[in-house]
């Protein structure tokens, strides 16, 4: 088994499903790249990330459909195709652009199955980029998984590594419910996100958290890029004799509530790390879950580590201050342990 990048794993997952099922097609802005350009090289780009490079040559431009910059239109077209027997994978370049097509993902796709009495099937997968760290500023850096998680009818995937990305993406495309597949832009080439990835296709079921590390003292919940930051923090904490359960939920809808509760019941302490919202976000959802169902197990108040209630800034020092970092996670863990961080540093 070869080690593959997050980027390569996603490309392989898409290719596997395109080969397996001719109802699967890709649609989005620049996903082949070069359509209509003087050179007419249909594979000029393969998307802004090159993930679908070569797909137009291999599968034809009917199945790798470049669109105008018209998110509302092509997302709605993908929804209509999904409701009539196809299995489209629509690429929304940045999840921030959901402002231009939210109706489709709020009022249409998630509600068809329910509103139409269980008779409509809309197997749409939306691949979209999330995350800060690239000085992409306030309109290209958000992580909006909490918004989609709050919409009944949608499933939401936030993978953190190459192995999970391929298996979860194939599951998303094969799933009969609509799925938001949210890829953190820092993971594509992050060495710690690379993994041994089988060449063949495989699926990872939704709603099953991954225990990145097991420990006794603190439960840390983190996904996407934050799973890597949390693992870095866990190494630091281990040096101080504090061991952590680090749990990557992988999907926020459905959510593996059982694994989170079991871990907190065992450790008695919870730190939730999330790059999404500082208010009404995923971290708050997990905190409420634990407060409602495992309150008696808690030895100390729950700590949340999120960005501040502030748009993502452009300037690097500001952006680094905005992003949840390892030091904050260590501090939060020490806090739930009742250890004075300053005293601990001196010691």
């Amino acid at each position, binding site marked *: 088994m070869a080690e593959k990048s997050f980027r390569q794993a996603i490309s392989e997952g898409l290719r596997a499903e395109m080969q397996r099922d001719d109802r699967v097609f890709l649609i989005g802005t620049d996903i082949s790249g070069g359509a209509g350009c003087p050179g007419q090289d249909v594979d000029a780009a393969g998307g802004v990330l090159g993930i679908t490079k070569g797909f137009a040559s291999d599968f034809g431009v009917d199945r790798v459909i470049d669109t105008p910059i018209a998110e509302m239109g092509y997302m709605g077209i993908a929804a209509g195709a999904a409701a009539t027997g196809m299995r489209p994978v629509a690429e929304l370049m940045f999840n921030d652009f959901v402002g231009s097509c939210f109706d489709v993902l709020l009022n249409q796709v998630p509600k068809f199955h329910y509103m*139409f009495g269980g008779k409509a099937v809309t197997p749409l997968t939306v691949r979209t980029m999330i995350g800060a760290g690239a000085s992409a500023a306030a309109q290209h850096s958000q992580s909006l998984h909490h918004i989609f998680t709050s919409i009944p009818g949608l499933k939401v995937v936030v993978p953190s590594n190459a192995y999970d990305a391929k298996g979860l993406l194939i599951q998303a495309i094969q799933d009969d419910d609509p799925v938001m597949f949210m890829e953190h832009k820092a993971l594509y080439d992050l060495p710690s996100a690379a993994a041994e990835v089988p060449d063949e296709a495989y699926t990872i079921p939704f709603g099953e958290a991954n225990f990145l590390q097991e420990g006794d003292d603190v439960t840390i919940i983190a996904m996407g890029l934050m799973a890597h930051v949390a693992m870095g923090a866990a190494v630091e904490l281990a040096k101080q004799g504090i061991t952590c359960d680090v749990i990557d939920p992988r999907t926020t809808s459905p959510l593996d509530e059982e694994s989170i509760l079991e871990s907190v019941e065992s450790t008695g302490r919870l730190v939730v790390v999330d790059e999404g919202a500082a208010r009404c976000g995923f971290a708050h959802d997990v905190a409420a879950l634990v407060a409602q169902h495992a309150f008696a197990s808690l030895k100390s108040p729950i700590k949340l580590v999120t960005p501040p209630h502030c748009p993502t800034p452009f300037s690097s020092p500001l952006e680094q201050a905005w992003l949840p970092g390892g030091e904050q996670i260590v501090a939060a863990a020490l806090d739930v342990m009742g250890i004075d961080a300053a005293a601990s540093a001196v010691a």
Partner: protein
Amino acid sequence: MAITKEQALNYYRKMRQIREFEETIHRQNTTGEIPGFLHLYCGEEANAVGVCAHLSDEDYIASNHRGHGHCLAKGSDPRLMMMELYGREEGLCRGRGGSMHIAELDKGSLGANGIVGAGGPLAAGAALTQKLKGSKNIAVCFHGDGATNEGYMFEAMNMAVMWKLPIIFYCENNGYGEFTGIEYALGADSIAERAAAFGMPAKKINGNDFFEVYREVGEAVEHCRAGQGPYYIEAEAIRYYGHYEGDSQLYRTKEELKNLEDNDCLLGFRKKVTSDGLLTDAELDAVDTDVIEAFKVYLDEARSAAWPATETLCDHVYINY
């Protein structure tokens, strides 16, 4: 495109069914027993029936909030639709959707839609499916003049032209987007001319005349089935009632409201087929009686049908969760 006697009777029956469906709920709405919002299609029946006369169950339509007529014309059962409006378990959508969300995918109906303009891309997506499958089936996007100003429609029309999708954008221009006149809301000179600028054939027709609708849509359907891309039709139509039931229509003049029936599509149909000798008044009257009697039964059944059990509240949120 001559119409046989049998066809004429079927089309008249369908138009009469739509009229009776709407008049029944118009009456019942005053009793307060129908929950939610109702947008009636009375006066526009020739459009739904004249369009759907050319479609099979394998062709798709997307409808809008004023969708009862489209759903009935596409073949949905009036009895089950009445149950749905009453929110009953036996309703077409188990009472989960109601008036604005009646759909029946098996019959090629992507559904009524509570969001103005949303049907544009959905129908274009159904048309894309046909293109990718290499079928000769087509899609029709029913929309009102109000929807023609939505970005949804502009984006869908552009891509339909780009990809030569087999879709008819069928605009029922009843003169009002909710309470606001189209003459105010339209920046261009005409809806059809603006649509033509997207690069597709576009015609303006009289939507009160069933035979004109039938003929013009027939040509558009042939165009689409032949793989020649999308087609736009703007049909002048009449909305008898307000935007929704309960709308006091203070924005319309008394003269306009008084003269609405001058161009009634059902009366016009009757006049034409009797003067052509295709059908007699007695035959048409028999259809009227038959439909009216049937709706008395549908109504009684809907009023007494079982409510959905509250234990089923969260059925159908996901297929598998």
